[in-house]
């Protein structure tokens, strides 16, 4: 029963789907978050976070290998039984829903601060919802292709960023490990969460065409994300003074704001507009797997009904209540905590039992 063969992902799409899900609003804030805790040594914390995320991703892939044709929500009922399984599916769907919602309101918040300060949040999020619907209704493959397309479309970003190199002060990065290892460990806790998105290994694995590349693919995705983060962090640390960088909510955007060409002022506006594509590749897998899980929960084959409902609910929610910047921060925190459980704790907990049950099955057959 190959349920997902009609919707297969190539290895590149698999990599970029996961990478796209990882790189989102985090890039805009991570230089400050790290600077607050570990000053300019934050990049070491990032490497630690990357190591942790890669290890857990490998565990997830290994776990999914036991059921090559099933996503996590097909596995839940098998292990936990029908009812507990349904609860688990519902929780998974809620987790993805929270993540998607947090991403959408954060993106809206940023747009409201930087670009459209007079436009109400629900209008902005409604405008997000329309193209998102068009992409997600096509299923995993469409999302994978979209992630690939966006990746190509945003390749110019690092090149424009190099113009900021004229005003960097590499001295800011010295000395390395200035206050010992303690703050670095402290900061690595938050970098662990910057890599959230690799948990799509749960969902994307059965869609992958060439399953032998799954482990390699997820490692590449994590590494790609690490490279994006580390280049942004290092440029920010070298550009802003370590005493100053904590002043900015989104240091990465301020970096763009200072770039100026003879023919173009305010590169930040251009950048932010195209950054919406990157944000969309983060939000869309979460939205998809949220409605995918909930549709399966209700035994529906077509995920589009729930998708329409979800994309309608978000603007309505924002119409009823516009979240303040404190709410946004709290919402992100909630996502981090749930993410810590679903992405890190769950595979560590489930890996052992799944391995054992598989072995027992194998023993029975033999």
């Amino acid at each position, binding site marked *: 029963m190959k349920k997902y063969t009609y919707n297969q992902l190539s290895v590149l799409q698999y990599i970029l789907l996961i990478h796209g899900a990882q790189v989102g609003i985090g890039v805009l804030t991570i230089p400050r978050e790290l600077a607050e805790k570990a000053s300019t040594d934050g990049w070491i914390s990032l490497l630690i976070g990357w190591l942790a995320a890669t290890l857990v991703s490998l565990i997830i892939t290994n776990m999914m290998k036991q059921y090559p044709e099933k996503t996590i929500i097909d596995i839940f009922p098998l292990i936990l039984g029908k009812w507990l399984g349904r609860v688990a599916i519902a929780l998974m769907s809620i987790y993805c829903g929270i993540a998607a919602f947090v991403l959408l309101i954060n993106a809206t918040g940023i747009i409201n601060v930087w670009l459209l300060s007079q436009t109400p949040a629900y209008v902005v999020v409604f405008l997000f919802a329309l193209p998102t619907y068009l992409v997600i209704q096509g299923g995993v493959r469409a999302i994978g292709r979209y992630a690939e397309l966006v990746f190509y479309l945003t390749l110019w970003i690092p090149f424009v960023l190099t113009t900021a190199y004229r005003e960097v002060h590499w001295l800011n990065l010295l000395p390395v490990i200035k206050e010992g290892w303690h703050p670095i460990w402290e900061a690595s806790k938050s970098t662990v969460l910057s890599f959230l998105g690799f948990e799509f290994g749960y969902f994307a694995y059965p869609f992958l065409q060439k399953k032998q590349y799954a482990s390699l693919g997820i490692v590449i995705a994590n590494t790609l994300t690490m490279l994006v983060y580390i280049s942004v962090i290092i440029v920010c640390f070298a550009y*802003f003074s370590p005493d*100053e960088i904590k002043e900015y909510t989104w240091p990465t955007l301020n970096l763009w704001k200072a770039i100026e060409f003879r023919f173009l002022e305010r590169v*930040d506006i251009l950048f932010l507009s195209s950054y919406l594509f990157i944000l969309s590749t983060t939000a869309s897998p979460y939205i998809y797997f949220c409605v995918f899980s909930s549709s399966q929960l209700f035994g529906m084959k077509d995920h589009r009904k729930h998708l329409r409902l979800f994309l309608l609910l978000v603007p309505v929610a924002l119409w009823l209540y516009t979240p303040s910047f404190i709410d946004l921060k709290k919402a992100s925190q909630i996502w981090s905590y749930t993410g810590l459980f679903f992405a890190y704790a769950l595979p560590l907990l489930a890996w052992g039992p799944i391995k054992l049950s598989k072995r027992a099955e194998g023993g029975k057959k033999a």
Partner: protein
Amino acid sequence: MRAFQILLCSFLVIMLAGCKDQINLEDTTLTLMLGIDLNEKNELLYFISSPVFNREAKEKSEQYGIRSSTIREARMGFDERVTGLTQPGKIQVLVMGKKLLAHPDWFRLLDVVFRDAKFSVNARMAVLDGPLHELFDFKPKDKPRLSIHVTTLIDTANNRNLTVKTRAQELHRQMYEKGMTPTLTELKKEKKAVKVMGTALLKENGTYAGSIEPRDTILLQMLLHEKQGELSVTIPIKEPNEHNQIVKDRISFFIKGVQKKVKTTYQNGRFHFDVHFKLRVSVSERMFPFDMKKDYKKMERMISDELQKDYMKLIKKCQEIGADPFGFGLYARAYEYKEYKKVEDDWTKAFSNATVEIKPDVSIKGNGVIK
């Protein structure tokens, strides 16, 4: 379905035209130059200068000055007077009165520049020696619009390193950075022109500490950025010569390349900075006879000595007025972190105790097209 799509498309076209943030260009008044000053009664004054693009208008730019407490509040006053909506996104120059800089909390006035995302942070920061209304009321017949003129003036003077170009974003860094003090472009309104006076040095808390001439700014810029833009230096050479001549013994040269190495140490309770310069120069003007072929080594030494003397004078001056525009604190942080951490909150004091040694090593690479 088709009808739905067409409906959706037309709906989007209507909605997407800037949403509610739509601004028509003809309704805007682009502020290109903003000024903040204090009057005799210590009240804050705000000035703007904006270009006028109307064919019927006889003047090509409009300027207003009003009394207000903050920049945002001043916008209200300007909007009551100017034709369109004042827009802060294109500000090119931000001028402060020298009187304002005597107060340590002036930097807080700029909060909106960094808080409002629509504000341009690329405005060049300048200080005017004198009352600001003189500058904003200045309508030179032989110059482009005042704001454009001042912008270009600062940019080109900076290209020749006669002054620094501190943009708002950079000022924010310099203000927050504990290991250095801020520098601004210093301007003066003369009878017929706006003149670049060099570089204003600020103290750690942002108050005005003193200024250095364009000639010293070249040295400062070289220490900060190595080679950037054009570096042309003229120095006196002491050769035994008869008196009362009109042509003084001067030599001018371009600096073609700079390599800087700073060695930072901490000994006996004070920081020690050893700056080793490798300069490649090309002579562009010589006011006295000299046999370059034979004695170029001697000339190299003379130039080195003269530069060293100038540098020591400049650094001594900065140490005396309590400023570190060179950012030696960054070196101290990078290489003597433990000791720096102890004094970082009062770095300028530690810097005034520090010993700085500059060792220029000049090598003449060119002599022009005549002998």
